[in-house]
């Protein structure tokens, strides 16, 4: 009888998880009226701040976990334990529509633990939204080059987040 109770409670928990929805999602939810929009960002998820003003205070897509500060000083630890393998594609390649820049590859890989939206020597570029059937004539690369690095958003929020310990303090 006791075994049946344990089994029943376990099944209820599993069922509850599946029916209540889940925190883990594989891709961005479909947003109405934006199916035709193509996002062309230079960095991983930099477009997120367009719609998510609180992006930097919540770990969308980024590894949410607690890890020690030495991961910054010795990036090999962070690379091995917490850096998602699928981010390699964004950092150093041009797959998935993301533009790779050769002269920044090595630097990016070396600092592989760094969240893509953290400002720093590389800088964060604001998102570029290309409307479908736009009359603007621009290439992706050309658009990026016009970006003013001084107008970076969310610097203040990022500092707040570092104090909260969600992202380790970066060494500069």
């Amino acid at each position, binding site marked *: 009888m006791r*075994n049946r109770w*344990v*089994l029943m409670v*376990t099944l209820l928990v*599993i069922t509850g*998880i599946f029916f209540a929805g*889940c*925190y*883990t*999602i*594989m*891709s*961005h939810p479909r947003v109405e009226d934006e199916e035709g929009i193509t996002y062309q960002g230079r960095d991983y998820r930099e477009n997120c701040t367009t719609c998510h003003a609180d992006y930097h205070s919540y*770990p*969308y*897509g980024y*590894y*949410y*976990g*607690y890890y*020690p*500060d*030495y991961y910054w*000083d*010795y*990036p*090999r*630890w962070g*690379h*091995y*334990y*917490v*850096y*998602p*393998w*699928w981010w390699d594609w964004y950092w150093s390649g041009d797959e998935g529509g993301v533009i790779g820049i050769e002269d920044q590859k090595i630097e990016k890989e070396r600092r592989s633990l760094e969240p893509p939206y953290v400002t720093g020597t590389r800088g964060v570029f604001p998102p570029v939204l290309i409307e479908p059937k736009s009359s603007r004539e621009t290439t992706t690369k050309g658009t990026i080059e016009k970006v003013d690095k001084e107008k970076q958003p969310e610097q203040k929020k990022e500092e707040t987040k570092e104090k909260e*310990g969600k992202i380790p303090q970066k060494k500069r």
Partner: protein
Amino acid sequence: MLRRIPLYVIILIFLFMTEGFCQEFTDYQYWEETSAGNNFGVGARAMGMGGAQIATANDASALVYNPACLAKIKRIEFSGGMTHQRLKNETGFAGRFQPSNPYFANESIIQSNTRFSSANIVLPVPTYRGSLVFALGVNRMKSFDRAFHSVYIDPSTGTTDLDASILETGGINMWSLGGAMDLSPSISVGATFNYWDGEDDIIQEYYIPPNDKLGYEVWEKNHYLDSYSGWNAKLGFLVQPNRFLSVGGIIDFPTKYTIDQEYSFYYDSLNITSPDPGYTEEYTALGEYDLTHPYSFGAGVALAFKYVTFAGDIYYSDWAQMGGKGVDEKLIKENYQEVFRWHLGAEFVMPELSTTVRAGYYVDPIPFKTVYLEKDRRYLTFGAGFLIDQVLTLDIAWNHSFYEFRDDWSQFIKESYSTDKIFVSLAYRL
């Protein structure tokens, strides 16, 4: 079902044969189901930390310790491991008093085994938020490697009256398919489905040299070959309420085994006092029985500071709840007990050296009842890990244990075991 006859039962057999049987020895006899307990340990990192992994597993061994911890893995991992065990068994006089009656000589036997122990693949699925990770692998969960040698001497003549040995080898592998996902930024859950497969090979041999009292010279050999197959599931969760603390728990569902048993018996006696040629008997038998292990529950806590992690686990299993078709459940209830197994471990990281050192301690109580258990199974563990080129980890661990059965009151005899285990694991993350 009969797995191993310990020293006390050998006493019993011998005393039956010499007509010196005393009723009190009937209490000494027990039956042991080898698959109960006898966890060998999986993963060099884990076993360097005394097996305390429910809240802190961070590699493929999470399949074994807590599948929810798989959610912490962010890179594709291929890993494998090997183990080496050196077991030393000593039997003989306990040392407090010199018995005046026939007694056991001090004897020892060493058994060494080097084995492949694990192969695992971890596949994290790209997620937009949270974590979804699958893993599959095979791990050697239980080891039946054991040896026993005992010599019984008649001090009045100085001759050997009985030479007994038991050699047992084998183990059970667990083939696992598991997965884990994040339910929230701080909560992960996981599950594994496991297929268990293995063998237990036991050879018991007794030799009684030409004996004037008996009038016979006797050989006897019992050979058991048991093939285990079964399945079960495991659920786990992991909660990280803050950056320092992790709490985990697991439920191990009952494992349902089918055991195919082959048994062969050989007995040969030679009459030394008459022209009667003696007696020889030889036969084989096949059997099958079902065995269901009980639920097992585990809970673990880990405290992670900058360079140091402390971890502790506790497991509960009530082995008296074992049962199954063809099993004498009354015998099990009489001879088995509930067991709390606990583990403590620590890990210290030296990041500039890409090196980690570990230490641990754990107690794995014997699941059957015996009044002669002097020291239960306790393990002291040490280990080290090396991170190589940010894609490879090499972990090494050493475990040492000692436990002993002793009868200080009637026979002044002991049966002690010491075990040294070495674990080596290599993991590559793409």
